[in-house]
């Protein structure tokens, strides 16, 4: 039993690390643009398919496929935001959120139109699981974990040390003050969308490497992404990471008592629990 639990916790930490990547994207858009951008689901799928094309059609290795996915989802994110969501933002956060759901529906169906509903897998060598201290671990899991860590480290370094990263944090903190100080909030918003949707795309590839992809890939994990962001504190990037690890481990541990189909219910239950006890989440600031 203890070994079984240790195995689940290990799997949960691996899954949580991958989940953290799109969760950072969701929470970053929330922090800067102040609306829940549900279109993260379709961009996750766009990234998954862009990475799949790079991997299967062009024969690129997984690490490069991740880069392609980042660029493709990021560009798709900026273009769709400029054309569709940005003009609606003055109508309010909730109207924009509704538009984001409609946008997701459109983009998801563009993918379905081109690729159909079939499940697709990445071209990966089949490798035997490693045994470490009695725990099983797949080499692919370790690679995905590594890629997720690299992506997140890059984001943290960018936000902490570059001028643009600091500008993004300033806008998230106080948009009026930031624009008074001469920061181009429009440009920051565009950049945030690019990076956030790019991260969603990376998340799509990492999830696809683990299992398979189809037009609903993004929609299926979106509840876990929301849960990670809300549990960690909506708008807080370190919070998204902590929240994602919590949700990842929670979903795996739920297998002890629940049928596997109910994994995503854990995310919903976690959202309800956090909103009841501590609405601002583990590391968040405001929720009212």
């Amino acid at each position, binding site marked *: 039993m203890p070994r079984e639990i240790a195995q689940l916790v290990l799997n949960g930490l691996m899954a949580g690390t991958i989940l953290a990547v799109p969760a950072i994207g969701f929470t970053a858009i929330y922090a800067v643009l102040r609306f829940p951008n549900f279109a993260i689901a379709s961009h996750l799928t766009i990234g998954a398919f862009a990475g799949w094309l790079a991997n299967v059609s062009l024969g690129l290795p997984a690490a490069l496929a991740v880069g392609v996915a980042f660029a493709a989802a990021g560009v798709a994110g900026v273009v769709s935001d400029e054309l569709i969501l940005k003009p609606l933002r003055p109508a309010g956060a909730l*109207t924009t959120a509704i*538009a984001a759901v*409609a946008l997701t529906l459109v983009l998801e169906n563009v993918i379905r*139109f081109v690729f159909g509903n079939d499940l697709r897998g990445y071209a990966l060598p089949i490798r035997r699981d490693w045994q470490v201290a009695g725990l099983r671990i797949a080499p692919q899991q370790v690679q995905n974990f590594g890629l997720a860590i690299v992506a997140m480290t890059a984001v943290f370094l960018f936000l902490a040390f570059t001028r643009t990263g600091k500008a993004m944090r300033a806008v998230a903190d106080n948009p009026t003050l930031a624009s008074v100080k001469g920061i181009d909030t429009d440009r920051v918003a565009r950049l945030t969308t690019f990076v956030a949707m790019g991260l969603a795309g990376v998340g799509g590839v990492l999830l696809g490497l683990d299992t398979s992809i189809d037009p609903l890939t993004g929609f299926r994990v979106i509840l876990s992404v929301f849960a990670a962001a809300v549990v960690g504190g909506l708008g807080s990037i370190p919070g998204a990471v902590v929240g994602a690890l919590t949700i990842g481990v929670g979903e795996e541990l739920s297998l002890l008592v629940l049928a596997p*189909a109910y994994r995503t219910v854990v995310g919903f239950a976690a959202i309800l629990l956090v909103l009841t006890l501590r609405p601002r989440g583990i590391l968040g600031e405001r929720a009212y």
Partner: protein
Amino acid sequence: MDSYLVAMAVFAGLYALLALGLNVVWGMTGMINLGLVGFFGLGAYVSALLCRQTGAPIVVGIAAAALAAAGAGAAVALATARLRGDYLAIITLGFSEVVRLVASNELWLTNGTDGISGIPGPWRGRVAPQTFNVIYLAMVVLAVLAVLAVCERIRHSPYGRVLRAIRDDDQVAAVAGKRVIAFKVQAFAVSAAILGLAGALWGHYTSFIAPDVFTPLVTIYVVLALTAGGTGNNVGAVLGAALVIFLMEGTRFATGWLVGLAPVQVAALREALIGAALLVVLRVRPRGLLPEAIVPVQASR
């Protein structure tokens, strides 16, 4: 062809109920419900199961469906009543997914993804199918008129004014001594009850429900119906629902002319079109065909 038109009228009526239900929260109170299909599905399952398993009369099933949905709605609203509206968006979306997961996996209760068939309908089997359709249409029209009357009563009453005040600025409403949270929870419960009613009526009409029926796409249809008709306007909600059914069915015929496309591509085109229609309406005519008489105050925050 006649029975086809009658069936479409029934579906338009059911969508009108859904749009009226959404209008109580989104149009009148300014609360979002992106998981309204969850309440719709909950109502459908409650009534279908009650009538099939216990042989309860259809009226009892429908009442239980509305009550169950109202309870779920109150709980969801209560969980987020103190928080910003974005949280309600996330919670409702999650709620509808949970309903679908439970319906798909609790085989002992819901028969999983195979769904429940043989749901009783009033006089079904005792009259000709054509007559059943017409009787059902009359019932749905009555239901729409009744709900429309209730919603209009709410809108013109002092109660409705408080809801609008909350929509425009809940802090001002609170300062005026209104118990904002209680109003929000009540409005959400009333809205969910209407959604549950629509779900129950759906099941008794089609005699078959499955988790597939209650996908997020339905939510988009209803949001489109209300937005196109006129958010905040009850008559607009009904008009919008008729338009959406017309659009959905129209595209069914229009895509018949498209040759050389796989069925999945045709389905994808139709779904994308619905999403695009909502985006266009939001951009071009955000207040709908029949705008609300009183211009909503733009929230200053």
